[in-house]
């Protein structure tokens, strides 16, 4: 009965490769997010989608491209991977706003670029 799931949980790849991380939520939420947690554990928003529409696009290199085929899925594709892309990437989702808008996080994907 996983709420927000991500695949894979671990990803090790070489510099220059292209990779994707998938996220799915079964909570019926409308909004999904990608956050990046760097090696110092600092968490920062990357993107958000609402009903397949891009809402937030923080200053992220255009090598990162989110794709939302439907409102239950938000995938993150990364082209030409660099060493600095090594991080933990978290997907999150939230329901339509009714009061406080809690975000539910997935388990994270640890990406290591060699």
């Amino acid at each position, binding site marked *: 009965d996983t709420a927000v799931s991500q695949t894979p949980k671990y990803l090790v790849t070489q510099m220059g490769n292209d990779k994707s991380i998938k996220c799915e939520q079964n909570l019926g939420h*409308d*909004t999904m*997010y990608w*956050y990046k947690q760097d090696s*110092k*554990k*600092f*968490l*920062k*928003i990357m993107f*958000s*989608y*609402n009903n397949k529409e891009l*809402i*937030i696009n*923080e200053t992220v290199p255009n090598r990162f491209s989110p794709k939302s085929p439907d409102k239950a899925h938000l995938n993150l594709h990364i082209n030409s991977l660099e060493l600095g892309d090594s991080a*933990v990437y*978290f997907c*999150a989702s*939230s329901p*339509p*706003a009714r*009061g*406080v*808008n*809690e*975000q*539910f*996080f997935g*388990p*994270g994907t*640890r990406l290591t670029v060699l």
Partner: protein
Amino acid sequence: AQTVTQSQPEMSVQEAETVTLSCTYDTSESNYYLFWYKQPPSRQMILVIRQEAYKQQNATENRFSVNFQKAAKSFSLKISDSQLGDTAMYFCAFMKHEGPRGKLSFGAGTTVTVRA
């Protein structure tokens, strides 16, 4: 941009004791939301407690409570009767908007270690 500051990188507490984590933030908004998230070694992000800025009453969730001082822009977390399972990194977070524009801005985190 909103800034969230957690001035204590690490804290250690004896089991059953109380520990207080500090958080300050900077905003010109009058309405917003504040959160504390816990990240144990499993790395899962878990919501601990939340507070709406328009509510004067401090939020409480079992052993976790906050001291929200809106004028001082302070939002501290108190963990009472600390348990070994409370060992984790704790992040204070700020959200300006509801709905799809509601992005979380996080502090740098405080690592809490509960000693047996």
